[in-house]
């Protein structure tokens, strides 16, 4: 019974991990750019949520998600328009990698300067400890909410990409950047929206992760690693794959912790490593 509980909690944690990965997958799927600064942006959004909830202590901390999401969208839009669009068509794949890496270093140091290097977390009070008892299983409310939210967001994203004109334009731009221009589409503008969306999704993951575990300005690399593993494990550019990948990682981590309480993320990384060896194309191999 205790193992069933572990598996369920792992799956719930996986929903959160999937949220970390989805933004990275979206940007990679559409513009073939790995945004190395994705982790730092997630940490930045967590800092914003902590700052906002200390300024407005009477507002429930989770409601801070709304302004943080809006802010992250705007930051992503600007980040793409001012910085990433300069290298997105570069024939050298190293250029976007180096540029976004540079941004991640700068962001990390700016965060140390502004927020200090202390360990923080987002306090949501009772909610973080509340749990449900179903058939003798102890299920945390917060992780359950997170997985439900992740599933809803994945569905919404899928709906937008499949059934709206915006979605068609995004997919067409991913296919043929030049030819969409013949239909009156400005590819750079599409990229701006996609990066905005990516960081908004990352912000949701970043803030929810800040509820679960503490963070510092240096936590970005760890978050990026999880996001990266989720995306590669799921299959590059596949959204449902990312959800599966997240769940697999979450389960591996909690099973690992059960066996060895000092393991941390070791077993999740091991799962990733083994999967990379036996199935490098990921669980689901399809594009956007």
């Amino acid at each position, binding site marked *: 019974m205790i193992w069933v509980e572990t598996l369920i909690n792992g799956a719930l944690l996986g929903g959160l991990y999937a949220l970390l990965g989805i933004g990275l997958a979206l940007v990679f799927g559409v513009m073939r750019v790995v945004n190395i600064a994705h982790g730092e942006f997630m940490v930045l959004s967590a800092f914003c949520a902590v700052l906002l909830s200390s300024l407005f202590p009477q507002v429930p901390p989770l409601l801070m998600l709304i302004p943080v999401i809006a802010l992250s969208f705007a930051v992503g839009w600007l980040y793409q328009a001012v910085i990433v669009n300069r290298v997105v068509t570069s024939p050298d794949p190293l250029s976007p990698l180096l540029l976004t890496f540079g941004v991640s270093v700068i962001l990390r140091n700016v965060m140390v300067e502004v927020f200090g290097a202390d360990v923080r977390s987002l306090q949501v009070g009772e909610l973080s400890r509340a749990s449900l008892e179903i058939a003798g299983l102890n299920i945390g409310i917060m992780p359950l909410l997170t997985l439900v939210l992740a599933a809803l967001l994945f569905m919404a994203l899928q709906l937008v990409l499949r059934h709206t*004109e915006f979605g*068609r*334009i995004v*997919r*067409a731009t*991913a*296919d*043929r950047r*030049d*030819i*969409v*221009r*013949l*239909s*009156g*589409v*400005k590819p750079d503008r599409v990229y701006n929206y996609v990066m905005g969306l990516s960081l908004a999704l990352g912000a949701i993951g970043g803030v929810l992760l800040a509820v679960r575990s503490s963070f510092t300005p240096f936590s970005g690399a760890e978050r990026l690693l999880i996001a990266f593993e989720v995306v590669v494990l799921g299959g590059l550019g596949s959204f449902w794959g990312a959800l599966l990948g997240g769940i697999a990682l979450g389960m591996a981590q909690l099973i690992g912790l059960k066996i060895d309480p000092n393991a941390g993320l070791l077993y999740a990384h091991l799962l990733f490593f083994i999967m990379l060896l036996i199935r490098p194309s990921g669980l689901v191999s399809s*594009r*956007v």
Partner: protein
Amino acid sequence: MALLDVNGLEIFYGDLQAVFDMNFTVADGEAVALVGANGAGKSTFLKALVGLNEERRGAVLFDGIDISQMPAEQVSRLGLIMVPEGRLLFDSLTIEENLLMGTVNRRKGSWTLRRVFDLFPILEERRRIFPGQLSGGQQQMAAIGRALMSNPRLLLCDEISLGLAPVVVEQIYRSFADIRREGTAVVLVEQDVKRALATSERIYCLLKGRVSLTGPAQGLQPEQLTHAYFGN
């Protein structure tokens, strides 16, 4: 006044010049053939017109508007629409979605999904299928359909018969009667010179990046054309 008026256009590929001192006009509703050997600069010229090749110099007026330095997405909104060589459909969009991409530039006109399906009924049957599962001819119809959805004033067709069976080419060319009935002007870039001449009113022949012959498509002397096409 001509719908398209190109004067002294020079087009470059890095350090190389691909097209020299090009003069080219298309009247409203006219069909013009642009022929020439491989590498004569036909496709380069079309790409420069719609703004996909940015290294160009010279005057290009479309409907009186200077488009010589205009980016492709703006040119599209004026109704100068290209069917690119090799179809270049969007692979992760269904046929219907590919056609709908033509409406993104928001040009009003008589072409709708319904009318494109009437023109090429096979596309309606295949509307939910992805381009990869279509034959070359059906893909070409979809590419033309996508351009028509933008309600073009001038339609630029780059090698639309390339690699297709003669029966299919015949069918596609028959559709031009319908397309031109709307008053749409057409520029046909073709390897198949005979077909291009039969469908057009005027012809331009390119040789090594220069216009080597221009005039009415009918009554052209074969040796005159051979000379213009191959040079000496």
